[in-house]
């Protein structure tokens, strides 16, 4: 196992898997490199792959309109060892963000079809992967709720007076 695949092996999605099970998952992937500025996927696109970032940085963005001009605004940064594109594992399998490489990146690309077959055929691996995915999605949900409530609080303070 190289240093780079060690980064992928430490990904939260693979938490709790035995070494052999982890290797089976990682063996499904293909390594790719991407230069800064490259777009990995765009909002609304078919999510047929999942990425594990082995090196570099990827920014996840959503479009916002600023003075009538549409711009992609950073929502989340992904760094070494993190997963992105979990929409590949969850219906309707459409990416909900746009992913753009911020720092030259090395990635492991896991095709949805192969990953789905492994999940369906190995109950233990399937259970652990989906449990880890639920944990990651749950954390994202709590963080998003927190940020949302903070923005609403500011809007209330601004509109009705507050702190």
């Amino acid at each position, binding site marked *: 196992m190289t240093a780079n695949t060690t980064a992928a092996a430490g990904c939260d999605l693979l938490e709790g898997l035995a070494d052999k099970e982890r290797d089976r998952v990682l063996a499904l992937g293909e390594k790719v490199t991407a230069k800064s500025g490259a777009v990995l996927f765009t909002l609304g696109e078919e999510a047929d792959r999942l990425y594990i970032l082995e090196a570099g940085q990827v920014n996840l963005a959503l479009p*916002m309109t600023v*003075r009538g001009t549409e711009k992609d*605004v950073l929502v989340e940064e992904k760094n070494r060892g993190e997963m992105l594109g979990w929409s590949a594992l969850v219906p309707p399998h459409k990416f909900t963000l746009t992913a753009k490489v911020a720092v030259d990146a090395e990635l492991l690309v896991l095709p949805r079809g192969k990953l789905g077959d492994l999940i369906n055929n190995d109950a233990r691996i399937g259970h652990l992967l989906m449990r880890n995915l639920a944990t990651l999605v749950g*954390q994202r949900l*709590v*963080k998003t709720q*927190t*940020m949302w409530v*903070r923005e609403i609080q500011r809007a209330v303070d601004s509109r009705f007076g507050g702190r």
Partner: protein
Amino acid sequence: MLATAAIIGLVVWFLGVGLVLGLGAFSEPDMVEAKPEAMVAKSEFFAAENRIPDPWHNVPIDLILSQLEHHIRLEDAAAESFMHEPSKQSLRARTLSSLSFN
């Protein structure tokens, strides 16, 4: 003679009073109609006078986006902090983002 002068004086006085009251009656609607216009004009005048200049008006879009990203990073960190130790205080903790101040 004196009585005639008194009668003429009374007639002139009544005419004067009537004229003044009559003018008032005619001029009152004009004043009523003029009031809303005056109020609107006054309101616009003060609104214009009190209008707060938009500090972001001449700021380039790239700089606004940069501020927005800075704001989101700080808010992300604040949300992480809340998740580590959930409390009302950590939920409401302020950041140094320039977009947080209203």
